[in-house]
């Protein structure tokens, strides 16, 4: 099997604050990420698919089809948005990178077209120092 990984970029703001905890607890738990007005990142989303290289066209995946899917299901809703306010899944769910990955995987799983190869993993880089990876279920 051959793996193809494609990176996408979106800029978004978020605030980490959970209704389960008190103001003091949220501050202790999330630190600067709890600042009341939110803050932003240039996220890098890496989507990997696996499959055989098609003998005729020499491709594992049609990149244009993958780009269209990520654009319509993820980037249109996430890019230049305040995740807590603009993306419905984060009305209740704290938009940590871990939760963002889960939401992205869920969205992709529900809309994954049959003609695309198997989704292998998704990786989210929040900053150059922090990245998170989820093996697709």
């Amino acid at each position: 099997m051959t793996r193809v990984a494609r990176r996408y970029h979106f800029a978004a703001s978020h605030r980490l604050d959970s209704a389960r905890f008190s103001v003091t607890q949220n501050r202790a738990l999330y630190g600067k990420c709890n600042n009341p007005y939110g803050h932003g990142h240039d996220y890098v989303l890496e989507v990997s698919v696996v499959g055989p290289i098609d003998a005729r066209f020499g491709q594992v995946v049609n990149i244009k089809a993958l780009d269209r899917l990520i654009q319509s299901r993820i980037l249109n809703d996430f890019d230049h948005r305040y995740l807590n306010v603009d993306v419905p899944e984060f009305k209740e769910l704290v938009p940590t990178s871990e939760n963002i990955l889960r939401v992205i995987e869920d969205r992709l799983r529900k809309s994954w077209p049959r003609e695309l190869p198997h989704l292998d993993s998704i990786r989210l880089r929040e900053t150059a120092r922090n990245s998170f990876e989820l093996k697709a279920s």
Partner: protein
Amino acid sequence: MLLTRRAEFSASHVCAHPSLTAEQNSEVYGPAANPSGHGHNYVLEVTLAGEPDPATGMLFDLQRLKDIINSAVIEPMDHRFLNYEVPPFDKVVPTTENVAAEIWLRLEPSFEGSRARLHNVRLYETEDLYVDYAGDNK
């Protein structure tokens, strides 16, 4: 243990299949189907696997690895138009997938009989697109 060495080469290519129309090629390959060609700064990561030699503490001689990558890949592909100058891309579409697989074929024999084996070839066509090929296309 894994050991990875990185190398770069710049090359041009066209991704188009002769049996398809221009429109179909554009749908399959996007802007890469432009018949005049275009280029990339490819970044290659060659990963070897094995156990270090207890005497030398090395899995593989890095200078030798550099020489192998240079003679098998960089010299024949750097500053070349892959479709015209680097077989089999006169007949095989030089997608990132096919170039990675060809690099694997060119590198693998160099490690026969050594304690290291070729583990993975990662080829970045751009910073936002890469392929991992490990010699198995099933």
